[in-house]
């Protein structure tokens, strides 16, 4: 049984941060959970979906983050507890509703979890979502540990319900995508009857009244924060330096202070409630030292707000020296780690610290650099996107008018890299390739003649491309839309979506037909299988040449990983060592040098290609590209 649903109060278990958040919601008696997947947040809803039926929780993958928030809010309006979870980009999508919802207020506890991705380990941008809490006057909690991730989530529901506004919980990659010990609490058995009070409309008007009321709620929230056990001070009575920190940075600070032996000289204020600031708590501890160092990820959120607080309380707190992002003592981009904090403290205290002999460090760094070739990202073996971009590359070359591809967010973003033959020339937000194509598609009147291809995945199509396609049809934008339908939200862990025929909780669902929807717009629509490489190439070429208006080509082939898990290999593929002429072939190693599927390797000893059977997924596409027909595919 999943640990999320385990009814074993007091037991210590190992949970991923995202699972801990999910467990916190379960312990709070959440009833409705909705989200659109996005790393590092996806496992929150993913793990809840697995236990939803057993625990009587409704869990759905929604079409996008704004809709997901609206679904959770509806539960709240009916008096139930609701949760939504998203990555930082998702909050941008959901923010339009959120920044009205703060004014209208909520009923049942409503928690908005945002998982930021400092250093953009699995993101297109780096963004600090905490700005939205300040912008929307919303309570903000930031867990440092896995236990806190669970406990804070539970508390966030209570807080939201008491105050009548949504509560934000901000996690980061090193909490969400990390694992640690969590002591389980009780799962409540109480039942609430959902009901919407029709005598009290939930609206943000009149703003003069609701905005005032929101500020009053936030003042009450600050009172609650003053006594929160999530805010702690550790260190001597009068430290030489006071570190103010939050989130996973707290663990880095603790470790750096310990490794440098600075426990008697450094005090650490760890904040779990970061907006509104708990003023009385801060005042007590800011008095301890004249030098303050801020350690946080990404923006100087605490840094700027605590500085303003110090200015307001100057009479009592006196002059301070602030060290942080603004002073250049901490990096002002990217994620933190123990080494960054160690270096900063070493510099401030002028202490020396050598975790390993410097000769070893130099040697190891040099040897690793010399012998370990870098691994750039590529498509998986058997990925349909490799075949699609191969066809796109050849079709654009045949067309010869310097056409190019506008992309967006998904596995197929890798079309920007050599793995996708560097065909994609722009990518930004979900659906933005299609929006940009609308713009390029109007430039002919100014003498622009390059053909335009927009690509989007199936899940992205539903999320954000549909409005742009409606716009294209209405305004007669001229471009070719490729919908790369691999029947999964693969980038984030294969979550189902409106095209897959099943729901988050595993029930059958009606398939929202991509071709039918596009045809209803009035677009010209065709579909191909990218593994039929020649046919796909010629279809793209023909649609490019055909010109005028919106043309949609659905390029459909299931994600190799999804298929592989279910069925194993499609073909047994091998390289016929007699037929492969290797370096003497005029192809100049087309299969390995250009096509670059990780399942095909070049054997320097024989000077020929061969299949790596540990990697090959048996798609058979390479058999179609070998000019000597040396790659043999046989039905597995």
């Amino acid at each position, binding site marked *: 049984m999943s640990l999320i649903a385990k009814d074993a109060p007091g037991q210590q278990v190992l949970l991923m941060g995202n699972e801990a958040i999910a467990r916190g919601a379960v312990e709070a008696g959440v009833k409705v959970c909705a989200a659109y997947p996005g790393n590092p947040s996806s496992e929150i809803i993913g793990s809840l979906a697995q236990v939803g039926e057993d625990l009587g929780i409704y869990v759905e993958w929604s079409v996008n983050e704004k809709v997901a928030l609206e679904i959770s809010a509806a539960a709240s309006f009916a008096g139930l507890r609701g949760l939504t979870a998203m990555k930082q980009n998702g909050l941008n999508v959901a923010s339009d509703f959120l920044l009205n919802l703060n004014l209208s207020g909520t009923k049942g506890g409503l928690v908005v979890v945002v998982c930021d991705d400092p250093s953009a380990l699995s993101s297109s941008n780096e963004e600090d979502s905490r700005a939205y809490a300040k912008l929307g006057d919303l309570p903000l909690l930031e867990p440092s540990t896995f236990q806190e991730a669970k406990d804070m989530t539970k508390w966030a529901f209570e807080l939201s319900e008491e105050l009548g506004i949504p509560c934000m919980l901000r996690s980061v990659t090193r909490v969400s995508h990390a*694992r640690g*010990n969590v002591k389980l609490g009780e799962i409540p058995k109480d039942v609430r009857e959902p009901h919407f009070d029709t005598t009290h409309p939930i609206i943000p008007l009149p703003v003069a009244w609701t905005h005032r009321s929101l500020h009053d709620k936030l003042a009450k929230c600050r009172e609650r924060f003053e006594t929160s056990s999530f805010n702690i001070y550790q260190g001597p009575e009068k430290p030489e330096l006071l570190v103010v920190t939050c989130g996973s940075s707290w663990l880095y600070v603790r470790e750096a202070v310990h490794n440098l032996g600075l426990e008697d000289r450094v005090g650490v204020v760890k904040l779990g409630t970061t907006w509104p600031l708990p003023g009385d708590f801060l005042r007590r501890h800011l008095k301890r030292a004249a030098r303050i160092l801020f350690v946080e990820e990404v923006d100087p959120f605490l840094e700027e707000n605590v500085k303003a607080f110090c200015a307001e309380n100057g009479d009592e707190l006196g002059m301070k020296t602030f060290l942080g992002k603004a002073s250049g003592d901490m990096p002002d981009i990217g994620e933190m780690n123990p080494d960054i904090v160690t270096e900063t403290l070493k510099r401030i205290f002028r202490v020396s610290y050598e*975790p390993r002999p410097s000769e070893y460090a130099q040697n190891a760094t040099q040897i690793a650099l010399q012998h370990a070739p870098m691994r750039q990202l590529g498509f998986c073996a058997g990925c349909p996107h490799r075949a699609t971009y191969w066809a796109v590359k050849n079709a654009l070359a045949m067309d010869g008018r310097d056409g190019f591809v506008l992309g967006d967010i998904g596995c197929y973003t890798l079309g920007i890299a050599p793995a996708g033959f560097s065909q994609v020339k722009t990518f930004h937000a979900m659906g933005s390739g299609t929006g940009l194509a609308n713009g390029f598609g109007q430039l002919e009147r100014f003498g622009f003649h390059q053909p335009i291809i927009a690509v989007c995945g199936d899940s992205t199509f539903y999320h954000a491309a549909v409005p742009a396609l409606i716009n294209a049809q209405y305004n007669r934008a001229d471009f070719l839309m490729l919908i790369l339908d691999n029947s999964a939200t693969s980038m984030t862990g294969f979550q189902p979506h409106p095209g897959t025929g099943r729901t988050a909780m595993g029930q059958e669902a009606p398939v929202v037909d991509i071709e039918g929807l596009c045809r209803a717009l009035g677009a010209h629509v065709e579909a191909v299988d990218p593994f039929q490489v020649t046919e796909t190439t010629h279809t793209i070429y023909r649609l490019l040449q055909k010109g005028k208006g919106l043309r949609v080509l659905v390029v459909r082939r299931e994600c190799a990983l999804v298929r592989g898990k279910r069925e194993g290999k499609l073909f047994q593929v091998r390289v016929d060592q007699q037929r492969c002429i290797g370096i003497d072939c005029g192809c100049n190693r087309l299969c390995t040098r250009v096509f670059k599927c*990780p399942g095909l390797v070049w054997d320097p000893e024989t000077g020929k290609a061969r299949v790596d059977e540990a990697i090959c997924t048996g798609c058979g596409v390479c058999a179609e590209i070998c000019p000597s027909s040396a790659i043999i595919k046989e039905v597995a």
Partner: protein
Amino acid sequence: MLLLEKDPLNVIITGVGGQGNVLASQILGQMLVQKGYVVTIGETYGASQRGGSVMSHLRISHKDQFSPLIPQGLCDLVVGLEPVEALRVLGPYGNPGVLMIVNTRPIHPIDVISGDAQYPDLEQVLKEIRSLSRRLWTVQATDMALEMGDPLFSNIIMLGALSATGILPLEREDLERILGELFPPERIPANLEAYDKGREAVQEYSP
């Protein structure tokens, strides 16, 4: 028995996306939590399915929750699911006392496949790893996994190999219980077999 009593004990499991690195670290972590340890695991898998280097950091302690990232130079044990990935982590995290367990089967990076980079000679890689470590064990985990019918068994084979070194208090019964929580019953016997095979196959490296 080589049980390390350092606190925290820092372990890196490294490999290439798709090798089952994250699952191996999760299983290892759960085995240790069952033994009463406080464990933190940091996982870097933004691009795990797509051929990139993937690393899990495990911090194993009797008393405290440590950060999910190991400080530079402080790794005690590396479980390398791929040889050059094992060597790569020694750059930032190695030290003269580090212990190494390495699966000897290379996975070629795209740049090697395309001819833009060279994959080093395996024997050379193992020699360099040995020169930068206290002890090195090797296992032909992928080859054994392929014999069992699925390359994905290699991560469990590596856990078996790790258990045989005695560096960590790993017990087969703990694994069995955790597999029962993670997998459907029909998949458990083959995974236990993989673990046992890894226990038998691990060898200390001598050049």
